[in-house]
């Protein structure tokens, strides 16, 4: 079995973000990390690998040279190898552009499963898994909270408002996972050291069958028109209880009733 885990290098969620004049994110000025949701997909891939002898898990990252750091991080969890797609023409691509690049990179690869996080913490479009499946012409099982592989079938529970769906598809398939699916392990020192010597295959746009006319900021299907910083958080209402508990309890109940929670 061969599993591909697409991962993204994103600005640290705790960092203050700045925007470039072209309304793309300033990615150089802030600390970059591995997208948190990708840790769940990596963990899920590793669990399948542990249950299924002979499984190979490969990380795939579209990103500039500095994304090597993110790739090493992903490898340190115990993945087997990496593919990086790096090209100046990629900068500013939207979800569709990136999906087409990932699909291009996978065109010549053998794989049974693509497992990815449901979203990236910087853009949060949640579009990529479904778009990738479309480009690859494969079934998409998105927002999964549970995965089972049985022969050539993947069965998943999908998170839904108010419940979950059980769905299945024939392999190969594209799966996206959400936080509830697992608790990721920590990379061990052994994993960290081993990651330094794992193979990373670097490709450019031409290698993945695309050219600069098809991707990048200028050819994006979507356009960012405006960026507004989040307004500072307003101070909340403070309720002082008199020690009896009744003042606080009443205020809390009134608050919930007023907002129709009760």
């Amino acid at each position: 079995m061969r599993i591909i885990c697409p991962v993204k290098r994103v600005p640290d969620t705790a960092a203050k973000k700045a925007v470039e004049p072209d309304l793309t994110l300033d990615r150089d000025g802030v600390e970059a990390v591995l997208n948190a949701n990708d840790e769940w997909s990596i963990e899920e891939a590793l669990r399948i690998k542990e249950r299924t002898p002979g499984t190979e898990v490969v990380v795939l990252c579209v990103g500039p040279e500095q994304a090597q750091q993110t790739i090493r991080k992903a490898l340190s969890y115990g993945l087997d190898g990496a593919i990086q797609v790096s090209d100046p023409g990629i900068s500013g691509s939207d979800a569709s552009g990136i999906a087409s690049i990932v699909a291009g990179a996978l065109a010549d690869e053998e794989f049974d499963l693509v497992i990815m996080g449901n979203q990236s913490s910087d853009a949060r479009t949640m579009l990529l898994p479904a778009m990738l499946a479309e480009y690859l012409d494969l079934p998409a099982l998105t927002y999964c909270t549970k995965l089972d592989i049985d022969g050539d079938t993947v069965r998943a529970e999908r998170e839904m408002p108010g419940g979950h769906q059980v769905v299945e598809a024939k392999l190969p398939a594209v799966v996206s996972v959400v936080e509830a699916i697992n608790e990721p392990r920590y990379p061990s020192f052994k994993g960290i050291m081993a990651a330094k010597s794992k193979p990373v295959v670097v490709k450019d746009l031409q290698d993945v069958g695309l050219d600069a006319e098809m991707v990048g900021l200028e050819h994006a299907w979507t356009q960012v028109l405006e960026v507004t910083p989040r307004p500072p958080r307003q101070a909340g209402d403070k309720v002082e209880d008199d020690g009896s508990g009744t003042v606080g309890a009443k205020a809390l109940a009134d608050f919930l009733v007023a907002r129709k929670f009760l």
Partner: protein
Amino acid sequence: MDFAIPEELTALRDSFARFLEREVRPLEAGVAPELARGEAGTPAQREAAAEVRRRACREGFYTAHMPESVGGWGLSALGVALLVEDAARSGLTLAGAAVGPPNPAAPSPLLLGLPPALRDRYLAPLMAGATTMCFALTEPEAGSDAAAIRTTARRDGDSWVLDGRKHYITNGARADLAVVFAVTDPERRARGGITAFVVPRGAYAVPRTQAVIDDSDIAELVFDGTRVPADHVVGEVGQGFRQAMGFLDAGRAAIGAHCLGTAEWCLDQAVAHARSRTAFGRPLAAFQGVSFPLAESKAEIEAMRWLTYHLAWQVDRGGPATPDSSIVKLFDTDRAYQIADRCLQVFGGQGLLAEGPIEARLRHLRVLRVVEGASEVHKLVIARALGLA
């Protein structure tokens, strides 16, 4: 000159930070009310610390300083120092149980000097976090002058017979085994006449524990005709003093890092307090009487940092650790104590409360200026390096 922390160590710190947040913080929350009441060393805290130790063993952090041949990571001294610093900087009381050094209860590379069968018996359970040890050098009549120890070991057939008394031994009452230093040749003493033995718990008496200002757990050990088999010598007969000094020297970067992390934590707390607490209609931070001591503390923390990292780097490349190890021990313990004291002052009355963030640290840092070579002893070493003694 390259001051960059190697990428793999940054990645390792990241893993460790997660471990602390995910596994240690919830356990700490369980004992937080006790800690806030100033109660230390309760059964619940001991159990929580043992749980942290077991989990840290499972992940490998606790035994990271041990070589790969016995199941450790063979982590560099710099790597160990960074983990120790981060444990202290987290402010989690239980975080200290997640890393081996500088705690003498953790598995020690000294035990690599045991024959293979005894390594399996004594070292393997230590590596699994199932047991703990202690390092028994100091005696009532021999502290700073450790070569003056009076405990003796005499060969009798297939065994050694130990007689003497150790005191102030960290973890002495609870350890499953003690590494005990004893005189085997009174003529030669430090020059080939002191030997280290591994002695299992039960073979010696622990007449009493001793109460100290910082809640650390020390005890007296008594050897009265204590018999151990001949193969229980650690390393070579006569090499004990050299081993003891080597062990202490190797630990200096870890003690320094522990001081560094503790000082950083105290400063973090004091800075936050100075910004949020108001007096005379302004935040404390607006008064230079408050901000300048904290600025000085920051400058000293950076000096501690680079002295400590440099020592670790020196150890890693196999260079001589003396007198740098003494410089780190002297400077870091002294500066960390002064910094904690300044930070305590910023908290006013709250600084003196057991539930406050600084009080227990200040007491602990005071102890570090005495143990593992008091400050004066390290000044002697530095003076000697200057050709002054």
